């Protein structure tokens, strides 16, 4: 108990870094994934092909390898990047590929007639997306996406390997001083669990909220 009280201020620092990294990754991957996801569904053949290639490659590589590729691989190619941003970039690539697939799934669940009806009444492409497709697709998109945020939080634990003092690394550092491994690991597991489980519950809630929609 004393160890846990001693550890909490240190863990709070790490906890904030974990949240900050996760938030950055979620925002960047949402922005990038949305654009590329729309490109995958509506883009010209070459764009579709490139996005598909990007998504399949990223999803075929372990996150840890992706992190090492960015952290160790970018500087020799002349791209200066520090550990923090290497972690954010790698996790964003990983998450972005996920978002692309969620977007594709959500948009293709909307009947073709909706797009054609929008065309028939003279809406431009952007208007059709904004007023016809997105309002409907968002209900399909939200539940898996919120649930997928847990992957960003869990994945962010891997950046501790680059020496960033996130929640995982702050746990390791406290253990290095107190030599009490088990209570601290369990405390850390509890914190991660609390973040991720509340996200999963939110996802389930949103899913139930939209359960009235049938195809």
């Amino acid at each position, binding site marked *: 108990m004393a160890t846990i009280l001693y550890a909490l201020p240190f863990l709070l620092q790490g906890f904030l870094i974990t949240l900050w990294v996760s938030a950055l990754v979620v925002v960047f991957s949402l922005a990038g994934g949305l654009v590329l996801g729309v490109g995958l569904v509506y883009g010209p053949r070459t764009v579709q092909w490139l996005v598909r290639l990007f998504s399949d490659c990223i999803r075929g590589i*372990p996150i840890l390898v992706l992190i*090492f*590729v960015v952290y*160790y691989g970018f500087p020799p190619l002349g791209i200066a990047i520090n550990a923090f941003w290497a972690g954010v970039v790698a996790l964003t690539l990983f998450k972005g590929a996920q978002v692309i697939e969620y977007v594709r799934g959500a948009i293709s669940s909307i009947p073709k007639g909706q797009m054609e009806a929008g065309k028939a009444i003279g809406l431009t492409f952007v208007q059709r997306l904004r007023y016809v497709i997105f309002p409907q697709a968002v209900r399909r998109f939200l539940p898996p996406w919120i649930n997928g945020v*847990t992957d960003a939080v869990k*994945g962010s634990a891997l950046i501790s390997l680059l020496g960033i003092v996130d929640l995982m690394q702050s746990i390791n550092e406290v253990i290095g001083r107190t030599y009490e491994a088990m209570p601290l*690991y*369990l405390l850390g597991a509890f914190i991660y669990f609390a973040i991720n489980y509340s996200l999963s519950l939110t996802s389930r809630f949103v899913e139930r909220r939209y359960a009235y929609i049938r195809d």
Partner: protein
Amino acid sequence: MGYHLNFNLIWRHFDKLWQGLVLSLELAVVSILIGAAIGLLLAVWYVSAGKVVRAAISAYVEFIRNVPLILLVYIVFYGIPTVVDFAYSPTASFIGTLSLYSGAYLVEVFRSGLEAVPRGQLDAGKAIGLTPWQRLLYVRLPTMTRITLPALSNTFISLFKDTSVASVIAVPELTYGAQWINFNTFRIVEVYIVTTIMYLVTGYGILFGLRQVERRFKVER
């Protein structure tokens, strides 16, 4: 770009990567087998159990699914030996972790698979006088297996990728081999190009093979 690609050092140490890849696959195969046993047992128990058992099984599943794998690896490898007087090799420890990890995901897969078996099949089994065990063994499980095959192959692929986390406790799998070459030869870009290609080719190769198997056993609905 002042970087000149030179793969010679990679080929000289290629056995590190190759043996690493083989070990990664072995870890994934052993873990999914143990995990499938855990998952199947708990899923069968879950669908026929009372509230308390269901809550306990759900707690296990939710805990594993919501905690980073790397933390689970640390708990099993560094944490547990401090509490019990018991030590194991990194490889054994990682197989234990990954089995528990995949078990949690597979409980869900098998549970929904069991529930997806059409009611009529079970009634038919009852009608021809099969005992509950026979119904489970000869009717429910075979159909469930066919329904869950796609989810099983996806789980296997993601387990194969998750084996990269074993490098943090020095299990000499593919990522560890890549790190070793990275730190000892400094042919950084080359080693990650080769490693990435090895992961991609192996992952998609397995996926392609498993899709063929799935097609063979597809459930007509």
